[in-house]
């Protein structure tokens, strides 16, 4: 497949998944109907709509719209973050979780759930709803910042040290998280457990808007990162020889991935597997060159997360499955099948 065709295919998949995310549910809304309703909203305003249109407008704009936006942002951030991390680490196993983002976010989330209860009662409801994602965001960022500090000496960030320290830091953070889980009441435990499995059920436009700048920043950085990541595939020395400021590239990549993945995890919970698998799927189709890989992975990740969310909504109707269960339950076997068929093509 050519690179352009690959990016176009990923874009088409994303559009289809977004349409499904807007249309699928107890009230089915076809893409044509959705356009009709949104057109009417634009012309008449929400107050002037006939009742059946008002109902569909409410579903589209208040419920499925933010859910679709947040899902797309989170999926794009995780997949793009995975692709960038795999490139920087030159390691096919890397994903945003490896640099402490998910662990740090989970620790902050459980800390807020268990210890923040008193504070939570004093906050106005609008702020209270955002307190958990904001805590998770800063928890994720703080873990990565600590990791970067540990692995950087004399201005050089050692990749092998980053990987090992990431594992060690992850274990320690998980231990503290475990301690808080041990202290938690049953209802707190349930809240935390569902948060770790991921869900777009609590999506609001405010949450989507808060995540947007961080995800957008990484998307905008794609052209700046792509050439450097391609060169780093030759090793850091050869990348330097070919004109890449490798230390700057690593700092930029780490910061961009940490901020956007923390925003994704904060908004949608710790959704696994998309950050690992989406870049590999794209690489198999169009090769490892980052100019095409990064945008295609972002689109594919957004599409995968939305498709998983649609599945999560319909498999156990009227209940909703956690998305993390869907991404892993469908994604992992598919990925294993792919590995068995195309082994060796993955990392060269």
């Amino acid at each position, binding site marked *: 497949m050519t690179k352009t065709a690959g990016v176009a295919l990923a874009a088409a998949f994303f559009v289809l998944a977004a349409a499904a995310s807007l249309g699928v549910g107890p009230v089915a809304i076809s893409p044509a109907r959705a356009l009709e309703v949104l057109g009417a909203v634009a012309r008449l305003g929400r107050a002037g709509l006939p009742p059946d249109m008002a109902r569909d407008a409410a579903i589209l704009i208040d419920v499925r719209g933010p859910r679709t936006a947040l899902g797309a942002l989170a999926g794009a951030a995780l997949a793009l973050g995975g692709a960038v991390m795999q490139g920087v680490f030159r390691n096919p196993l890397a994903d945003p979780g490896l640099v402490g983002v998910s662990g740090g976010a989970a620790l902050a989330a459980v800390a807020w759930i268990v210890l923040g209860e008193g504070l939570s009662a004093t906050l106005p409801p609008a702020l209270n709803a955002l307190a958990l994602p904001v805590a998770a965001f800063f928890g994720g960022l703080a873990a990565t910042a600590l990791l970067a500090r540990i692995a950087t000496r004399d201005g050089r960030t050692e990749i092998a040290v980053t990987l090992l320290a990431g594992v060690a830091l992850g274990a320690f953070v998980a231990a503290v998280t475990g301690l808080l889980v041990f202290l938690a009441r049953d209802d707190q435990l349930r809240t935390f457990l569902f948060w770790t499995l991921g869900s777009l059920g609590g999506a609001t436009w405010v949450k989507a808007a808060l995540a947007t700048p961080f995800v957008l920043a990484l998307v905008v950085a794609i052209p700046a990162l792509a050439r450097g990541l391609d060169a780093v595939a030759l090793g850091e020395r050869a990348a330097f020889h*070919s*004109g890449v400021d490798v230390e700057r590239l690593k700092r930029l990549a780490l910061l961009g991935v940490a901020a956007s993945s923390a925003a994704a995890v904060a908004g949608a919970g710790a959704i696994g597997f998309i950050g690992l698998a989406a870049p590999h799927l794209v690489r198999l189709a169009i090769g*490892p060159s980052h100019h095409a890989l990064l945008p295609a992975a972002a689109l594919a990740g957004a599409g995968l997360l939305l498709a998983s969310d649609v599945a999560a909504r319909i498999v156990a109707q009227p209940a909703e499955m956690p998305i993390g269960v869907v991404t892993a339950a469908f994604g992992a076997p598919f990925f294993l099948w792919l590995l068995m068929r195309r082994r060796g093509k993955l990392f060269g």
Partner: protein
Amino acid sequence: MSGLVAEDVTVRLGGREVVSGASLEVRPGRVVVLIGPNGAGKSSLLGALSGELAPASGRVSLDGEALSAFRPAELARRRAVLAQATELAFAFTVDEVARLGLPAGLSRAEADAVVSQALLAVDMAGKSRRICSELSGGERQRVHLARVLAQLASAPDGRPRHLMLDEPTAGLDLSHQLATLSLARRHAEAGGGVLAVLHDVNLAAMAADEIVALKAGRIIARGAPAEVLTDAVMREVYDVEARIGVAPPGPFLLPQSVRLV
């Protein structure tokens, strides 16, 4: 002063002195070859001249300016480096790897022309769609040489461009060894400087305008091939007894025995 110049350069790695007070010059149009036993500091000296290793003392300059003053991107326009071994991650094709060397700012047509010419020069044009990691070691080495040639092929700005090759002939068959050295010679004839590390003393004698022999981080001898390829120097540098002959235009060496400790 144009060219790559090292003045009294000392390099330390992990607290150990690997190059001690080395001075050499690679002038435009000249091919300089570093020889010496394993661990003599050849690659470290090359690393100091490429900007990859900061010398602990001494001065390294490129066309009269201190090397440390260059940003990586500027440096890449003025010199290209072929490392001893390049471990490529992911399944890049031959064509994609050669393109990794391209400087920014070339038009698509220029880039295509530069890459196809570089692949032709290393005899890999017929395999440009192949996955690099599926090639033999020697073929991979040639692809990386093409990448390095492409790096120096940007629009001419009148400045000399320098080529630095760390064991470029390792793993190559005889004809491609000679082809690689001809490429280096052609680069010098086009006005660039060449600094190469070679293990084969006879190839060095054939390729070099000047040979620099290192041992334990120090330069033991420096000069035209006929001045460096002598019984005494070979004994001192390699602990090897050798017979030196002359096959015009230069000397050659036939190893006889080694002194084992």
